[in-house]
């Protein structure tokens, strides 16, 4: 350590020097952060949009194009152009090659075992079923709770989960409910996972409450969702 250049420990350091150092470093750091943020923002936005698109295409099999719709306070859907305002209620309609509506992707969230779970599921208004499921955000225990993303039997619940409406099209005929593993005998029940009970029950309940809210609204506004714009 013969080449060390120790920090000066003697002598008075004026307040001005301390202020100069802190303000100078603070300004330089702020500039660096702003430059990096501005430089990376376009790519981050693009990657997020791609991830969202991938999730939509996954939960609505057969989708070729998509269109974002915003649910208005008047009770209808309008096409969402550009960035949505914070707090907007969005749904994503997926269309096939002919521009026919294949399904609607809906985002839902609720409390899991470790933290809030954010998921996407696809709704097919023709068959009145949930046709796909994808976890957007999860902090569930690795190896246990995260089976909700990998367990083939659990994922099979969401290939044709019944969310049929009642005769008046005002509410679900049967609410989606989670049941113990191996006890599923109704098409609206979600077969949970032993070893990931809390996480898989949470998914069943999240989809149950979200479909109760969204399915009647979407079904009664299908005309406004039925037209595709190329995206």
């Amino acid at each position, binding site marked *: 350590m013969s080449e060390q*250049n*120790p920090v000066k*420990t003697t002598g008075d*350091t004026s307040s001005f020097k301390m202020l100069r*150092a802190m303000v100078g*470093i603070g300004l330089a750091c702020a500039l660096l952060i702003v430059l990096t943020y501005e430089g*990376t923002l376009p790519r*981050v936005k693009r*990657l997020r949009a791609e991830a969202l698109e991938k999730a939509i295409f996954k939960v609505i099999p057969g989708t070729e194009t998509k269109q974002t719709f915003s649910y208005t306070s008047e009770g209808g859907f309008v096409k969402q152009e550009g960035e949505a305002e914070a707090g907007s209620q969005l749904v994503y309609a997926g269309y096939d090659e002919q521009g026919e509506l294949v399904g609607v992707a809906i985002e839902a969230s609720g409390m899991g075992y470790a933290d809030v779970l954010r998921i996407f599921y696809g709704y097919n208004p023709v068959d009145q079923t949930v046709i796909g499921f994808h976890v957007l955000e999860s902090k569930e225990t690795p190896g246990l709770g995260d089976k909700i993303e990998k367990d083939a039997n659990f994922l099979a619940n969401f290939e044709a989960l019944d969310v049929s409406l009642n005769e008046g099209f005002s509410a679900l005929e049967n609410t989606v409910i989670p049941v113990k593993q191996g006890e599923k005998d109704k098409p609206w029940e979600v077969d949970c996972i032993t070893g990931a009970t809390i996480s898989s029950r949470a998914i069943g309940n999240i989809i149950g409450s979200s479909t109760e809210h969204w399915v009647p609204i979407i079904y009664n506004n299908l005309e406004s969702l039925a037209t595709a714009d190329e995206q």
Partner: protein
Amino acid sequence: MAEQDQKNKKGFLATANGQPSTDEFIKGLWRDNPVFVQVLGMCPVLAVSNTAMNALAMGLATTFVLLMSNILVSSLRNFIPKQVRIASYILIIATFVTITDYLIQAISVELHKSLGAFISLIVVNCLILSRAEAFASKNTIGKSIQDALGMGVGFTFALFCLGAVREVFGSGSIFGFSFFPENFQDWVVMILPAGGFFTLAIWLLIFNGAKQRKLKTS
């Protein structure tokens, strides 16, 4: 001071006799390895080493922050008064952690999601502050770069050692490539926090055993 400046002019790797030296780099890899010898930065070591990819990404992110903060602290060592040095170092480290956070988001949203809050927690990794205070604030830029690279690579190596073992036994794969037979039952405990402690203990045993053996033979 004049002598120090003269040495600095000889180049990044110059020593007292003018010969290039990589001592500061080598020490971080083995003799003073931040994980296996100094046992520093245990929070990310145990939390993010559940897969080889996460371990590698966290190691590289920490190396980048360590390198950039060492360069800046060393460059400004005569400008920062002693009384405000720790606050200044934290400010510098936090800036590079924020930059790293943005860069990882721009590289891969998935990777950013899997590293989660641990990217922000690099700020409080005692390894980085200790290198700024104990080394970069007292040495030339060249030596500080060597020190940061040595410690960073040593940290990344240690994290990778843990991540690889935990992923192989906990998920039956490495970098996502599975090589065990289908009926292999994953050791779930290995990707839980307890598995981090077990693996770290085994690596510490191996590392210290090898050191002891080397000492005896020499």
